[in-house]
């Protein structure tokens, strides 16, 4: 009787803590500016099915796509066993789903094969991340300290969980063998492993099986509560992130409506600019800055982006600026956004934001609260290196859009601080004065058509 009560308490505590953490993340995301991402349900559904569930964009690179698919399918299928564990734990049953008969056997066998494959995939992941020299996309100033450790911790936890599963099944098989009974279900891997277990007493095996069972489920619940502090949170947010991602062509940048009103009023004095929004007490809401200086100036989707990022670095590995040695790394901008929103608002249980030094050409940060996203974490040099080529956006398996944040911060630099590089200021004034980004006379615009000849074609 004690075990189910303990288990119920553990479950309650784990899900309660997780819900509390998710609530903090939700609040962090909603710090961002309003952005209407509603409607187009059919289109969003198809995209979510293909990109999130179907992992469509992962398959641009076959090796990691295949390895990731194993872990992804393994995660989903093994969760069915977690349901059984929860039922068993709450009601004191043992292998409750056994009544499914052959279906149960198939399920358990699939689990075991997948778990074995997951171990292989995780080993491959670890090698890809840690061998010397590592893959280029697993390097960079943003991937040191906590992010680097986090990536390995996830792999170690996955190994521990799979080993606990095997140990639990093996002990159970051995126990049933000693009692002269047949364990329901099929266990292709554990059946072999069971023979390696020492032929000790039934009591010892019972303790071993129970211990493995508790380690397995406690491990899963701990992992659940580790997620909000980790890049591994992508297993949850990838789905809403893809659902809410932009449906317009990638080349279409957002329109700043407040500027539209101003420009219309300039061109047509009779244009009525909408009255500014008011607070409940009737006072005018403080105007929001043009562009983004800090996280609350970004649309909420950009903040959700930062929680959906698993720091894989595909964006950075295809960035033309990064490839040619510039400071810009799209992944860093996404990771900085998450660090900053957690620094300023709600932080997770484990929080160790990246502090950059010489390597990322950062001034030493003395005051964390005033170290805004722009300048505090992302330097103008990074932002000005972007060619807006959309390679990062195209490459992201979960439709994160680093380019949008880059443009928002450029807008702040130009419109609020007049801090564009001088050559761009020259380009701006050329457009203002000559209607062209170069210093040419507008009256020469049709010169190309002078003396224009075409060869006479007999066939015309």
């Amino acid at each position, binding site marked *: 009787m004690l075990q189910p009560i303990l288990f119920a308490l553990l479950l309650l505590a784990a899900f309660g803590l997780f819900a509390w953490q998710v609530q903090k993340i939700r609040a962090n995301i909603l710090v961002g500016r309003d952005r209407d991402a509603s409607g187009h349900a059919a289109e969003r559904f198809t995209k979510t099915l293909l990109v999130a569930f179907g992992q469509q964009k992962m398959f641009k690179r076959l090796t990691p796509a295949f390895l990731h698919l194993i872990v992804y399918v393994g995660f989903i299928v093994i969760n069915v066993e977690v349901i059984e564990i929860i039922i068993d734990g709450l009601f004191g049953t043992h292998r409750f789903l056994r009544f499914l008969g052959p279906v149960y056997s198939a399920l358990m066998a699939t689990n075991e094969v997948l778990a074995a494959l997951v171990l292989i995939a995780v080993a491959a992941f670890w090698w890809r991340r840690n061998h010397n020299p590592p893959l280029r996309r697993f390097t960079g100033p943003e991937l040191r300290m906590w992010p680097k450790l986090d990536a390995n911790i996830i792999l170690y936890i996955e190994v521990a969980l799979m080993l606990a599963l095997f140990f639990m099944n093996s002990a159970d098989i051995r126990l049933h063998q000693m009692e002269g009974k047949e364990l329901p279900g099929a266990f292709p891997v554990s059946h072999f492993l069971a023979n390696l277990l020492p032929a000790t007493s039934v009591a010892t095996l019972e303790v071993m099986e129970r211990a493995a069972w508790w380690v397995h489920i406690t491990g899963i619940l701990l992992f659940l509560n580790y997620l909000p502090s980790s890049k591994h949170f992508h297993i949850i947010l990838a789905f809403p992130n893809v659902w809410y991602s932009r449906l*317009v*062509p*990638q*080349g*279409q*940048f957002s329109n*700043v409506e407040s*500027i*539209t009103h101003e*420009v219309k009023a*300039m061109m047509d004095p009779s244009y009525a600019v909408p009255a500014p929004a008011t607070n409940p007490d009737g006072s005018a809401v403080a105007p929001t800055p043009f*562009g983004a200086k800090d996280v609350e100036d970004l649309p909420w989707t950009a903040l959700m982006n930062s929680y959906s990022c698993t720091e894989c670095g595909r964006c950075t590995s*295809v*960035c*033309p600026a990064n*490839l*040619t*040695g*510039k*400071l810009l790394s799209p992944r860093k901008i996404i990771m900085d956004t998450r660090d900053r929103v957690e620094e300023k608002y709600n932080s997770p249980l484990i929080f160790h934001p990246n502090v950059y030094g010489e390597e990322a050409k950062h001034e030493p940060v003395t005051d964390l609260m005033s170290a805004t996203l722009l300048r505090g974490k992302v330097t103008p*040099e990074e932002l*000005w*290196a*972007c*060619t*807006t*080529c*959309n*390679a990062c*956006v*195209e490459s992201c398996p979960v439709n994160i859009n680093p380019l949008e944040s880059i*443009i928002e*911060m450029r*807008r702040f*630099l*130009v*419109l609020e601080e007049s801090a*564009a590089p001088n*050559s*761009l200021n020259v*380009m*701006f004034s050329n*457009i*203002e004065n000559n*209607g*062209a*980004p*170069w210093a*040419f006379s507008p009256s*020469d*615009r*049709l*010169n*190309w*058509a002078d003396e*224009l*000849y*075409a060869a006479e*074609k007999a*066939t015309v």
Partner: protein
Amino acid sequence: MTPTSSPAAPTKRQLTVPTVADLAAQGKVPEILFWVGCAGAFDDRYKRVTRAFARILEHVGTDYAVLGLEESCTGDPAKRAGNEFLFQMQAMQNITTMNGYGIKKIVTACPHCFNTIKNEYPALGGEYEVIHHSTYLQQLINEGKVAVSGGESFKGRRITFHDSCYLGRANNIYEAPRDVLAALDADLVEMKRSKANGLCCGAGGAQMWKESEPGTKEINIERTEEALATLSGQAAALDNLRGVETERSTPSEHSLQGAIIAVSCPFCMTMMSDGVKNKEQEANVQVFDLAELIASAEGINR
């Protein structure tokens, strides 16, 4: 539009490019506006592309016109650089001009103008059917209006197409330029980083007007090296190309003599041409826009 005889060369005739204002004076609206763009109007190299495309438009008898002196920068470089205010000023000025003339359809040889007018002008009151010249050329070839014969032959010449970001990833146009090139009966070779994986030439996002940030290499050099290796059949040397995982290619030996890098964007044109000069290959490898290749193959680009 009326052909006039030229005394210098009887096989040539002079073309008069109609302006929208001239047509409006006659109470006419062109079926299609040829948006020339700043590079097309001022950049000496890209003016040749503008002229080639005008020859094609005239050759197939398109009812077209240009805005001429009434055209102004779309505002693309300002917007990409973060100057939303200047962008919207430019956009509204152009929209007022075009709406005033009743323009419905626009063709342009610049992917940046194309993207801006097509995707960003509607929110400001400018709704037009906008097509890039690669799509327009593809249509002309498919309809048989351009035979791609009677001029220079590109048969067997090695050509690689460099995707423009603002045509490709920005607007998902990958096949139209390739279809146009296919009509040349040339030896088309693909770079490893092509289509959605294409590498930027380095000029987008207002980079065209500024020095690049400190780094180890210029982007256009990285891209030109890839193009040259692809054209010379040495792309195997690029098997570990950063940023893309590809299958190993079989090395083959090709002379760069007469090879062509095809582009469809004025900024790519500048960047790739500079890259070829930097690699001292300008005597062998030429950079051409699609419109130039088609006009030459059609025998009207003189």
